[in-house]
């Protein structure tokens, strides 16, 4: 959010549980249009294969041009 406010294109990744908090923060900082990538909660405490699933969720929400090369 701070990067975006400084004019640097950035995407904030949040879990679905924390999406309302992220939106409230964005509104209170005058950045209601903040781009969010929302992944399933939680991200912490996962096995590597579970974490890879979260990463896949995140990548799928990027525009094709933003996705890393296969």
């Amino acid at each position, binding site marked *: 959010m701070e990067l975006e406010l400084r004019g640097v294109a950035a995407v904030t990744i949040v879990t679905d*549980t*924390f999406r*309302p*908090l992220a939106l*409230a*923060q964005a*509104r*209170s*900082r005058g950045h209601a249009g903040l781009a969010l990538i929302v992944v399933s909660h939680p991200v912490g405490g996962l096995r590597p294969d579970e974490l890879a699933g979260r990463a896949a969720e995140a990548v799928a929400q990027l525009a094709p041009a933003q996705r890393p090369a296969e």
Partner: protein
Amino acid sequence: MSGSAQLLELPEMNAGGWYEYAEERGWGDGLPTLAPTVESVDAYLAEAGPCGSAVGPVPPSGVIPDVRSLAANAVMAGCPPAAFSIVVAALRAVLAEEFNPVGVMATTHPCTPLVLVSGAARAAAEVNARHNCLGQGWRANATIGRALHLILVNLGGSRPGNLDRATHGSPAKYAYCFAEDEETSPWPSLAVRRGFAPGGSVVTVFAAEGPHNVNDHGSTSGEELLVTIAAVMATPGSNNFYFGGEHLVVLGPEHAATLARDGWEVARMQQKLHDLARVPQAVVSAGKQAELAALAVEAASGYYRMAGGPESIQIVVAGGAGKHSAWVPTFGASRCVSVAVEGSLAHA
């Protein structure tokens, strides 16, 4: 103060009706509140007198409160007008950047602002520093903490499950306020040690968990007591284990007297507790050790030290008779903040 309170037209209702009405709208903490009518808020502010300089905005909503909004919440909490400038000072401290109010109010950790009152305001507002000072049954302690929490909920919007993401929370979130027993303490008050003039009214806020008891009826020397207190502090489940941040050690007066008798001063107690509060590597899981390594926290000689230096261990004296002290861990991603109480209690 800037901002303007919004007046609401409500239907006629009795006290029970108000309780139901407010709870349905999320304007409270689950316990009954008093209705903040125009008349009650006006009378409250007239009795409270000057209450200090501007505060706000209150996160996460960003609302800049009018003094009438603050007073309305103090009325709802049952806070005595004589204590209102302590509430305003506590809010000003909570809103300081180093306190990290957004993080404190939104975190999954069970922290909440703990209000510690030092100096002349303690007597003027009748804040309890002795028996059961962290418990129930004393109006100023109960309602200063409650008023602050209601302000953060009703104006800041930090409601459980919404913007307050606490996993369990804590009973301390209803109200958390006590005073230093400066008359019993063998050492200068925390406020004086933090640079304020003796006797001046000061509020210090900590992003605190509830208190953890330190029972020690067996130790007969100050050094032995510090061994027990350090052992209570040394737990891998605490945020202070790896995040740093302050520990608050509330010495009961009997433990304090033993320590003072044996010549312990505050700085030496801080150093000793820091040296003794070590977590055996053997009780830290492999996964947690990996997490610590990623944060550049390493064990030495089979032990982890608690993060934060000796100066992060804040020591005060409070409580009644008995061989108990309390350790209050904190959020870690927050620093305690002290501010002078302004207005009518500044030099009470």
